[in-house]
């Protein structure tokens, strides 16, 4: 988290993803728009099933179609990634946009050595010969903090701990100097001390390389530490987005406020936890109108149930999709 150089690298507009299922169409991503600048960290937060992973996979052509159907635009340089051929998308994924996933064990190939998995992409996309690729692999492993990297190239994934495997995944992601790194819950399976190492690592790399980072998580603590800007997702929509300080200081969407209020905070054990009653909606049966109204403490009238609120500026830097803003937390919690 620090100032970034401002050049726009990614522009997402009205992205939608639907899946055909036996129960009917699942409306998983419902028109999200955001931008990402070079050197910036955008955090996407939201609960399980809110569409964080699917919307990010859709950016780089990794949503299988069918059963999926992706519409909208994802502007990356001259291209619209939504309409690119699979050939072009493969090129973008190999050279420009890298993605790291939650579970490093399933995303690494268990029967290939770490060295092989690192050099494969480089040889393909950067046309490096064996020796140059090996040298770069050692350099990258060193960069992500694997001790004696030259001796670890011949090892297999199971010989590495969870934290080390996630470092290897990051090294693979960085192999081709990406412009954008999408990190999908890269620390969820890790212990807090290891998580702290990985968070620090990605942030250092962002600062050094100027890449833009999209960090997907449900952990509002992690977000506070790394994000420049935050987008809160609920039922496939962005319900609130703001600079990180503004979001935590004055959350305006009732859902954002509920999430922040439900967290136990280290050092404040006496505070009673607020709860959000009920459950998130099923994407096959989304409520009409605002997706949050069945759980919303602010709901006032039928408008919430019939009309979908669009993101609008509150004048304090928050963009909020709600007709009725939540009061400041101090007034709302009695």
């Amino acid at each position, binding site marked *: *988290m620090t100032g970034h150089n401002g050049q726009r690298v990614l522009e997402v507009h009205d992205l939608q993803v639907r899946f055909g299922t036996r129960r009917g169409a699942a409306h998983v991503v419902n028109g999200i728009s955001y931008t990402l600048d070079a050197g910036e960290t955008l955090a996407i937060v939201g*609960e*399980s099933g809110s569409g964080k992973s699917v919307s990010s996979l859709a950016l780089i052509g990794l949503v299988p179609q069918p059963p999926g159907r992706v519409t909208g635009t994802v502007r990356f340089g001259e291209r619209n990634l939504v309409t690119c051929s699979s050939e072009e998308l493969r090129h973008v994924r190999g050279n420009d946009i890298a993605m790291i996933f939650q579970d490093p064990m399933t995303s690494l190939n268990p029967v290939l050595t770490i060295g092989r998995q690192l050099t494969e992409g480089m040889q393909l996309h950067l046309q490096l010969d064996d020796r140059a690729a090996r040298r770069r692999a050692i350099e990258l492993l060193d960069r992500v903090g694997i*001790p004696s990297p030259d001796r670890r190239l011949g090892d297999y994934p199971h010989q590495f*701990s*969870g*934290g*080390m495997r996630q470092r290897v995944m990051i090294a693979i992601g960085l192999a081709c100097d990406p412009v954008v790194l999408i990190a999908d819950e890269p620390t969820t399976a890790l*212990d*807090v*001390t*290891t*998580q*702290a*190492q990985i*968070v*620090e690592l990605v942030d250092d790399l962002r600062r050094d390389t100027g890449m833009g980072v999209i960090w997907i998580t*449900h*952990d*509002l*603590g*992690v*977000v*506070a*530490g790394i*994000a420049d800007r935050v987008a809160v997702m609920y039922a496939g929509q962005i319900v609130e987005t703001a600079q*990180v*300080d503004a979001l*935590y200081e004055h959350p305006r969407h009732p859902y954002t406020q*509920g*999430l*922040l209020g*439900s*967290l*136990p*905070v*280290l*050092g404040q*054990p*006496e505070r*009673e*936890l*607020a*709860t*959000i009653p009920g*459950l*998130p909606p099923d994407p096959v049966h989304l409520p009409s109108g605002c997706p949050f109204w069945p759980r919303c403490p602010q709901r006032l009238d039928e408008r919430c149930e019939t009309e979908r609120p669009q993101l609008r500026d509150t004048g304090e830097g928050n963009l909020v999709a709600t007709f009725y803003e939540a009061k400041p937390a101090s007034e709302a919690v009695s």
Partner: protein
Amino acid sequence: MSDVSSVSAGRRDANKVLLEVDDLAVWFPVKSGPLRREKEQLRAVDGLTFEVRSGETLGLVGESGCGKSTTGMALLGLEKATRGRVVFDGREVTGTSRRQLRPLRRRMAMIFQDPYGSLNPRRTIGESVAEPLAIHGLYKGGQRAGRVAELLRLVGLSPDYRNRYPHEFSGGQRQRVGIARALATEPDFVVCDEPIASLDVSIQAQILNLLDRLQRELGLTYLFIAHDLSAVQHIADRIAVMYLGRIVELADAKGLGEDPKHPYTRALLSAVPLPDPKRERQRKRILLEGDLPSPLNPPTGCNFRTRCPDRFEPCPEIDPTLQKADDHLVACHLHGVVGEPVDASAE
């Protein structure tokens, strides 16, 4: 938490010791080596001494693989102790046959991390909740259905749900069923093994508040296992921090949070991300070097020394014991007299 009278009702025997644990160790024999021929001992739990007081919540925190679940299982007699003793309300759990343990087991229960795996998918939730009653021969005949309805209501579920199957419920609802099942036999002591780790944040708060309410209403004693320090600090009265099969620090929740003594506790606290951007930016993290050592081959002396930022001469040589430092018990040569053991129960 605002209702002071019910808090003190739940914790009225706060100074009575319900559970005593003395030098508890659980080792697992494992096969290793290239041909899987060598036998080694995996020291999952290696010498724990602590007590749980009636009506309190003792938090047990530590990172993956440090032995928290194994400890919980051993306290209930579900995992055999290799060494040491567990005494529940004056009666020995360790070294007692399952059969003899049964009357005691009725007074102890466990809530598991995974509300999916811990319920039988082919049983209705009513059957699952009634199962412990059948095992212990409680609430016979027509009374049993009434008891099941009462338990479901207690955890905030409609008794009408009793004929449904687990797959029809969300994670948070399943966890409520798991809690109802654990409370069926009216236990005094409940081991909560990461009861909220697999749930969404908005649902975690619902379950934490529920556990808190049940404790007050039923006077329960909890061992609350988690790797999430902020959740533990919210619910626990005292907290024990584990590292590689040992307790490295034990203190009341507030003291542990405000003035951690053991270098591992400090590192752990400093790694917990706070949902507050201003504080997060100012905070200095203590990053630990390297990875958790293998419990097959723990380091000599203090087993944290390989990653400890404050290690000094005695650490590789002498195994620190829990000693009193202010109101904390700490196993670290920086605190107390090197090599001098202390009676943990004398606290």
